[in-house]
């Protein structure tokens, strides 16, 4: 990665200013099959709550003209689940 792209953000040095958007990128693992995640400056993971959340019942998605409304309900594995099951993969890919 070119040194010109090196970016400082909140005290961190990122190799690139290109970051994934939270929510649209899962925990990074889902996109690893398409390209090397190290090309990103950082993976911004989905929102994580203290305790796991199952998310909302019923239909969660409605398409709009050129867009999408969703009501997932913050489904996530919780902090401990994230540390145990997702963080090791992200560290392996260069996350800190």
């Amino acid at each position, binding site marked *: 990665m070119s040194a010109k792209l090196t970016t400082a953000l909140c005290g961190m040095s990122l190799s690139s200013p290109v970051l994934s958007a939270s929510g*649209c990128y899962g925990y990074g693992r889902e996109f690893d099959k398409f390209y090397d995640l190290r090309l990103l400056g950082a993976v911004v993971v989905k929102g994580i709550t203290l305790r796991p959340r199952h998310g909302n019942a019923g239909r*969660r998605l409605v398409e709009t*003209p050129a867009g999408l409304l969703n009501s997932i309900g913050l489904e996530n594995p919780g902090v401990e689940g994230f540390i145990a099951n997702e963080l090791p993969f992200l560290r392996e890919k260069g996350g800190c």
Partner: protein
Amino acid sequence: MVSTKFEQGTVIAQETLTPSIVRTLIHAPNIAAEALPGQFVNIKCGAPACYDPLLLRPFSFNRVDSEGGTFSVLYRVVGRGTELLRHVRIGDKLTALGPLGKGFVLPEQSKQMEPAARPSVLLIAGGMGIAPFYPLATALVTHGLEVSLLYGARLSSDLADKSELKALGLRVLCCTEEQRGECSGLVTDLLQATIDAGDRFDLAYACGPRAMLSAVKRVCKDAELPLQLSLEEHMACGLGVCLGCSCERASDEGYWHVCTDGPVVWAEEVKL
């Protein structure tokens, strides 16, 4: 390990089966090379540079020719995506993402099924739920299994793939909601009648509307017949990222995600 990829496919043929049922054949060799029965593909139905509609549309593989590098999708025109897809022309380019999801578990891979000398398998389709069954039936017949199909639709003209599945050697029983013809009624009634008549099967597969799958699940549970369901759900990414295509788990709290945990699941795993 499934190797999912984006691919720019080329439309090879458009077959209009009824005014609202269409089969689109696409040349996309990388996807076709790895597609398995019961898996699906997401297709961008609008023009390449147009993001309205935004979402790709999920379709079961209806035919796969891995050597020829093609697959087809069979669909009823029900909304904007399918309306756009029915109007693509031969030679048009389509972006596809696939193969996606978990497909059907074949009898020799199934732990739920009792070993049988020549397993007898039952397919149950409602309406466009027929779409994934041709590749499955081909695999089952190739393995030397005895395969029956119960197939229900609103109109007899909607019974797409009926003659092609018969030609594979399946025993095919159809019913429609018309008040005429060989059998009038719902496919779930036909299923109950078939089981009541003493027909025995080792494994069943069902695909169709959610209410139909719920009724099929009840009948198969009473008959102690292991059952796999191919589920359909509103979907965005197809990759397990957005978590939009949820389906309630049967055994504990929480949800499966149809795109990555399915679309094929064992019936006892889900609440319908």
